């Protein structure tokens, strides 16, 4: 993977975006801009709408009001964007076969696939587990395989939905290291988490969400040391936002 000047998908602009399902407002008039650079961490309590925001920014769902554009285009194809879901689903095949499937779906020429499989497995630390049935991997290993599958698309933007939510500390560390590595290669990471510590460790920018609305967005330093809103201050202090 090489450093790429991000041109087609970024910036991602959400203008007055709402998402309403059966009279329940999940996202309420969101205005956001995801630009190239350090990871953006979307943080907030459970039920804030983080997952829905990520899916919408990925292009999996359409806003019910407002609009989303990618690099200025309203209908950008998603082949340079990738997402890792909170509980990734492994295909009923081996680890390597899962990766090969993702590469084929990303139209990588068959001659290159074997090489890419080896590279990606090495990158995520699963090089020895290529032949193991993917569903038999541990939680952390599955998370890393899902990351590898996402990277198979050679994305400019990578959405991660609570990537370490169910992992033990050692696994959390390896995933976070991977995220740093990915960022270093020039990929924009947009990550949702409810873990304050993780946000502190990884964020370049922070977006605080609560009940479907953006409470505050700022760079990490400002957010953690000098937040503008009282809710943000309370959240950073460790209080429950109800």
């Amino acid at each position, binding site marked *: 993977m090489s450093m790429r000047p991000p041109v087609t998908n970024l910036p991602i602009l959400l203008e007055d975006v709402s998402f309403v399902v059966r009279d329940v407002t999940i996202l309420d008039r969101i205005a956001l801009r995801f630009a190239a650079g350090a990871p953006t961490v979307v943080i907030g309590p459970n039920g804030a709408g983080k997952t829905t925001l990520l899916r919408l920014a990925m292009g999996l769902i359409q806003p019910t009001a407002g609009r989303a554009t990618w690099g200025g285009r309203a209908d950008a194809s998603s082949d340079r964007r990738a997402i890792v879901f909170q509980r990734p689903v492994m295909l009923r*095949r081996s680890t390597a076969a899962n990766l090969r499937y993702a590469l084929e779906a990303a139209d990588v020429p068959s001659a290159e696939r074997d090489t890419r499989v080896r590279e990606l497995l090495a990158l995520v630390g699963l090089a020895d587990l290529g032949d193991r049935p993917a569903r038999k991997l541990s939680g952390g290993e599955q998370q890393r395989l899902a990351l590898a599958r996402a990277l198979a698309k050679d994305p400019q933007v990578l959405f991660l939905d609570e990537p370490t939510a169910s992992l033990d500390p050692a696994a959390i560390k390896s995933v976070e290291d991977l995220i740093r590595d990915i960022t270093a290669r020039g990929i924009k990471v947009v990550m949702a988490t409810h873990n304050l510590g993780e946000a502190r460790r990884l964020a370049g920018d922070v977006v605080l969400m609560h009940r479907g609305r953006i409470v505050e967005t700022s760079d990490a330093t400002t957010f953690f040391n000098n937040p503008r809103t009282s809710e943000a201050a309370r959240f950073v202090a460790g209080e429950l936002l109800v």
Partner: protein
Amino acid sequence: MPENVSALQLVLAGDPALFAIVRLSLIVSLSAVLLAALIGLPLGAWLALSRFRGRDGWVVVLNALMGLPPVVVGLMVYLLLSRSGPLGSWGILFTPQAMIIAQTILITPIIAALARQTIEDLWLEYRDELKAMNVGTLGSVATLLWDGRFSLLTALLAGFGRAAAEVGAVIIVGGNIDGFTRTMTTAIALETSKGDLPLAIGLGMVLIVIVMVINAAAWGTRRFGERMAG
């Protein structure tokens, strides 16, 4: 078959007429499973993935068709294939082809309905990931059919079990002709009605053994495959 030999001895000694009966039963039912799979698997997959008005109603209809009585299917196919019927010019009434057609009609709903259930469950699991990987509809169907292949094998097995066990359809459209359209089930019906119970029982045991062997083989394949692929 010679009268003065114990029927059970015939079964055990591998009498050629008996062998022909077993062979025909397998050819008819296995062909029906193949054809029903070719129709039923894509149909089940399509229904699993589609969302249109009234779709749920069609799912109920398909499930209900699993209970088609074999003898009714036999009668319908008989009326279709009779020389006095719409497809009479095909001239295949009272032949093994008619039996294959009748059994295919009988078991396609079973395979389609069970496939739909399996594939729909798998689709719910896989849908987000496949969408995120930009896999199109055709690619998704192929992936679901492949990844679900062991459960689908169970569906095929259920279809085969139904076909191999039924007598109502094949006896009407086949005519139970000695040496031509006589299967294990029709032979059992005939020998019972002739009062030759030992032979009927012998044939019944052969049928049970065959069905159990095929079931065991499929179960074994499934276990082996699951261990391989998780």
